């Protein structure tokens, strides 16, 4: 009788581990399918140049209000010190408009300068 229970327990254990293996494999297969689909999609885009190239790019300037003596760190230029009250104007804002034939990444003015290191008269 004891042997029967040991055998039964072994069979249940075997069945459970088999089912677990099948389930995990199935999960892995679906993840792999998803990954491979993504990779295929990316590869397709790369190979056919399928980036969204339907934009017209418009470059314009950005203006930062300054007081005399104020210092501004502008990416690509460095630190500029305002000699007088007024504005510092820089290139770099990008607006992406539809109906073009190029790729485009918008750039906001706030992306172009970071820190006001020294405040002059406000």
């Amino acid at each position, binding site marked *: 009788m004891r042997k029967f229970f040991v055998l039964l327990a072994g069979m249940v254990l075997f069945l459970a581990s088999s089912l677990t293996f099948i389930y995990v494999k199935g999960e892995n297969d679906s993840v792999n399918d998803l990954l491979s689909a993504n990779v295929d999609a990316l590869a397709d885009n790369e190979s056919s140049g399928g980036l969204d190239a339907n934009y017209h790019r418009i*470059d*314009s300037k950005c203006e930062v209000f300054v007081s005399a003596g104020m210092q501004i760190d502008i990416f690509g230029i460095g630190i*500029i010190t305002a000699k*007088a009250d007024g*504005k*510092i104007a820089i*290139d770099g804002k990008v607006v992406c408009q539809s109906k073009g*034939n190029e790729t485009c990444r918008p750039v906001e003015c706030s992306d172009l300068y970071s820190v006001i290191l020294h405040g002059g008269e406000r």
Partner: protein
Amino acid sequence: MRKFPYFSFVLSLVVISCVSQTKNEPNVQGISVDINKQADISEFVSSFDGYVCLETYEECLVNEIRKLKMVGDTIYVADDTKITMFSRRDGSYLGKIHKHGRGPGEYITLTDFDVFDSRLYVLSNVDREIIMYNASGDVLRIINTGEGFSNLSVIDEDNIWLYSSDSNDSMYNFILIGPDADVKAKYDKFSKNQSYTIEDITFCGSVSDTLYVSQYYDNIVYSLHYDGYVPLYRFDMNLRNTVSQEELSATPLSELHKTYKYKESFRSIMHIDRNRHTLFAETWCFLDGLALKTCFVKADMVTGKSHFYICGYDVDERFPLFDLSDVIGYDGKVLISYLTAFSAKKHGKKYKIGNLADISEYDNPVIVFHTLNY
């Protein structure tokens, strides 16, 4: 006979110089400008002609002035989505064209506008249309341009010039169209649609039905007429970097901009006017340590002498608002500029200008007028 070798030498020099002039830019007058000599402000400004505070309430709030035109007593101000009209005398609100949308008679983008005979012409690059409105906002006509354009200039109701900035499939930068979009003339051929524009004023002046035009990074002003597209004036400034005509014609604008974006260089001619022998020009330059600046040039075309003034380099207390405001347009010899209400209040208080200290910093911009001295 003894003079013959000398005579033939001089003659050959004349012939050679004529040939080289023809090969490069025939009839172009060069204007040499020394950027290291800042002229006195009185060379450029003869008087401060006051200011107008644009009326402010919810119906007529102006977001940001992208273009301004003054015709008669009306100031037309365009921001991203609408054109608002104000009185030149007191800044009172007169009406607006606010048709931003995708419906009939609406525009997705307000790319540029012009005014002729009290009618407003709105160019939309995305819609590929010019929509003509009356002052009440009724649609009078829609012209399908077929291609996207970045600037327009209305000569009269039958002639509209369009500029494409190397960025459409018409393959010409300047196209003159009629009321049915019929092409009457086209100039400045390009080879590839770049789909790239730098915001700029291409149509920078006019004399009767001839326009002055300029393109970004090009230091030459051209005259544009039904009959031709001819280079007229070239600004030779002693900046650290010069974009040559060869580089300009061989390099896409986006590549040029990558190369020169933050380098001292000539950018654009915003306005030009000639009065007898005096030439006045407003240009944009990128200057080391100052970034983008409005630079004025005044040249005597007979003597070749020129004056240079960097706007906003310093504040001259005789005309403080000339340095502190942004140039936005012209009405003959009157230079029109603007300040945000925040700046106007601040500087009005500091320089004791009229009642500017009393305005609200949340008001619409303040329009400023100066008479130029040329």
